[in-house]
C-alpha cells in the first residue's frame, strides 16, 4: 500500500526528516510514537502533500504510484486521507457543504457519479450518528467554534465519508475525554478492513487499545529508530524516550 524509502525533508531549509523508511501493507495498522518535535506531523504533511516541505532525498510510493508527483487533492482522490493534529477553521463554509463538495470531488476524481443532495444527506446522517455529531454541528462553519474534541470527531467523520484506503491519523486522540476517545476509537476501528490501511500517530497507548496496531514505530529526530509489536507502545509509555533521544544525540 505505502512504501517510504530513505525520506529526507526540509522545512525552511531545516532538515526535519532524515531518512525515514516505512512500509505499510494492505489492511495493516501501524502506529508511530515519538517525542515532541521528532517529525511525526512533518511526515504526515509530506505524505499528504502540503506546500513548503521540500523532499531532498528518497521516495514515497502509494499503491504503485509516485505520490510525490501529485497535488494534495490528487492524493486524496487516490485514496489518501490525513486527520489533522490541528484541524483548520474555515469561516463562512458550512460543514455539510464542505463534506459534500469534498466527497463529490473525490468521486469525480475516481470516475464515479456525484451524489445528489438527498442521497448525500442520508449517507452523512448514517455516519454522524455513530460519532455523536449533531445536525447543528453540520450546519456550522467548518471547525469554527468547535471544541477540541468536536474538531477531532469532525476529522473522523470526514474520514468515514471519504472512505480512504490509507488514513494517517495525527494525534486524533489528543484533547478527547474518555467517552469521546472510545467513540473515536470505535469509529476508526469500524473503518478497518482488508483494503484499508492506517498510520496512527499518538502519544498514548490508550488509543491503541481500540485500534490495535500490527506494528509500532518510534520516530526520533527524523528517523524511525525502533519498530516492534503492540507491546512496544506499553513499554514506551512506561520508560519514555530518553533512550532514543540520548542515543541519537
Amino acid at each position, binding site marked *: 500500500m505505502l512504501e517510504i524509502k530513505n525520506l529526507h525533508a526540509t522545512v525552511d531549509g531545516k532538515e526535519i526528516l532524515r531518512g525515514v523508511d516505512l512500509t505499510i501493507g494492505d489492511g495493516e495498522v501501524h502506529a508511530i510514537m515519538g517525542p515532541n518535535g521528532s517529525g511525526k506531523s512533518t511526515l504526515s504533511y509530506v505524505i499528504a502533500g502540503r506546500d513548503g516541505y521540500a523532499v531532498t532525498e528518497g521516495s514515497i510510493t502509494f499503491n504503485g504510484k509516485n505520490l510525490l508527483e501529485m497535488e494534495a*487533492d490528487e492524493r486524496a482522490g487516490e485514496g489518501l486521507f490525513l486527520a489533522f493534529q490541528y484541524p*483548520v477553521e*474555515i469561516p*463562512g*463554509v458550512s460543514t455539510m457543504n464542505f463534506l459534500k*463538495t*469534498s466527497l463529490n470531488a473525490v468521486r469525480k476524481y475516481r470516475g464515479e457519479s456525484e451524489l445528489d443532495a438527498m442521497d448525500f444527506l442520508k449517507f452523512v446522517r448514517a455516519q454522524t450518528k455513530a460519532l455523536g455529531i449533531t445536525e447543528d454541528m453540520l450546519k456550522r462553519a467548518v471547525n469554527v467554534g468547535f471544541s477540541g474534541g468536536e474538531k477531532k470527531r469532525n476529522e473522523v467523520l*470526514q474520514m468515514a465519508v471519504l472512505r480512504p484506503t490509507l488514513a494517517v491519523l495525527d494525534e486524533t486522540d489528543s484533547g478527547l475525554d474518555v467517552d469521546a476517545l472510545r467513540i473515536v476509537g470505535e469509529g476508526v476501528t469500524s473503518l478497518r478492513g482488508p483494503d484499508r490501511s492506517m498510520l496512527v500517530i499518538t502519544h498514548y497507548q490508550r488509543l491503541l487499545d481500540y485500534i490495535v496496531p500490527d506494528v509500532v514505530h518510534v520516530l526520533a529526530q527524523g528517523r524511525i529508530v525502533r519498530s516492534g509489536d503492540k507491546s512496544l507502545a506499553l513499554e514506551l509509555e512506561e520508560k519514555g524516550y530518553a533512550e532514543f533521544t540520548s542515543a541519537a544525540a
Partner: protein
Amino acid sequence: MTMALSETSQVFLDRYAELRGRLAGADLPWLAKIREDAANTFRVTGVPTPRMEDWKYTNLKALDALELVFAARPAEVRADMLPAKLGDGPRLVFVDGRFRADLSDSLEIGEGIRLASLADLLSADPGFIEPRLADFGDNATGAPMLALNGAFQEDGYVIALDANADAGAAIEILFWDTAGEAAAVRQPRNLIVAAANSRAEIIERHMGAGSSRQFFNGATLITLDAGAAIGHYRVQSQGAGSVHVNTIRTRIEADARYESFILAEGGEVARDEVQVGLMAAGAYARLDGIYLADGAQVLDSTTTTRHAAPNTTCQETYKGALDGTARAVFQGAIRVEPGADGTDAQMSNKTLLLSDDAEIDTKPQLEIYADEVKCAHGATTGELDAEAMFYLRSRGIPEVEARGILVEGFLDEVTEAMDDTPFAHLVRGHVAAWVGRGVKEKEMKG
C-alpha cells in the same frame, strides 16, 4: 479664474446644449432651470480628476477613450432575451435607458403605490415630481457627476409610496443594455419617495448583452419619511468596457430604516456612491456591499453618512475579492454633527487579495462634532489562508474550486444577514459565478 475643461467635459456640455430642448420634461420651466443650474455646476470642474480629494483614487480618464453616443440605439429586444424575473413582484424594464412598458410587468400593485417612469409622471403629474427633484441640491460643487446627471436627467424609475403603503413582494428594476461597440451614454434619474410608515423592497439590476458598453451616470434620490422602511438592493454587472457611476442620495427621517446592498462586479471603471443623511432621532441606515474585480477593473465604493440628529444609527460592511491587476477603492466618510449625541456608527471594510498585483485603497474619514458617540471602524486586507487551502485540497478539492470556496466563505459574512430572500439568492449566484469563472476557463482550455 476658470480651469480649462477637458475635451470630454466639453463634449458633455455641447451635447447638453444641443439636446436640452428634447429631454424628458423639457417644456417644464422649473425642470429646465434645474438642468441649467446643474450644467453650470458641472461646468465649474467638469469630469472629476484625481486632483479632487474625493476622486483621488478613481480616475475617470477611461471616459476619454470611449466613443460616446448620446442617441438611443434602435434596439430590438424581446422579453425572452432578458434575464428571468426574480420573484412574484412587479418588474420595470429599461432597455438602453428607455422605459419599456411592453417588457415591464404587473405595475399595478395596490392602493397608494405608484410605479412609473419619470418621463411618464412628468407629463401625468408634474406637480408631484417638482418638489422632489428641486430638493436635492444638484448644485453642490463637490459632486460634479451628480451635477452632470442633473443636467441631462434622463428617464428613470419612480417608486412612490403613500403613508402606510406596503409594496409586498420585491419590486424589480432591470436596466438592460444591448450590445454595441460605441458607448451609449445613459444618465437616468430615479426617485424613491416613501411616505410615513410605508415599506418596500427594491432590487435594481444593471446588466447587458455580452459585449454591451456604456457610460452610465445614474442618480437616485430617496426620501424616507418617519417610520418608513426601504430595502434598496443593487447588482451592478455592466459590460466589461463600461464606465459606471451611480450616486444614491437618501434622506432618512425619524425611526425610518434604509437598507442598501450593492454588489459591484461590472465595468472597467465603476463608482457606486451612497450618501445618506440621518435627519431625525431613530433614523437607521445599513450600507452593505460586495465588490468582485479581476483583470484591470477599478471598482470604487464610496459612502457618506451624515448623522444630523441624536440617536441615529448606521451600520456598514463592505467586503470584496480582487484578482488580476484589479483595484478597489473604499471611501467611508462619517460625519457626526454637533448635537447628534447617541450616534452609533459602525463601519467595516475587508478585502481579500487573490493576486500579488491586486490592490485596495481604503480611506475611512471621520468627522465627529458631538460628544456622546459610539463610533467604530476597521479595515483589513488579507490573502487566502494557506492552511485552509491545504485543508480543502487534502480533502480532494482541486485548487480553483478550493479558492472559490474560501472566497465565498469570506463574503458570507455580508450575505448571511440577508437570509433566504430572492436577492440573497441572486447575490450568491453572482458570487458563485464569479468564483467559478476560473474553473470554466480551465475546462474550456483543457
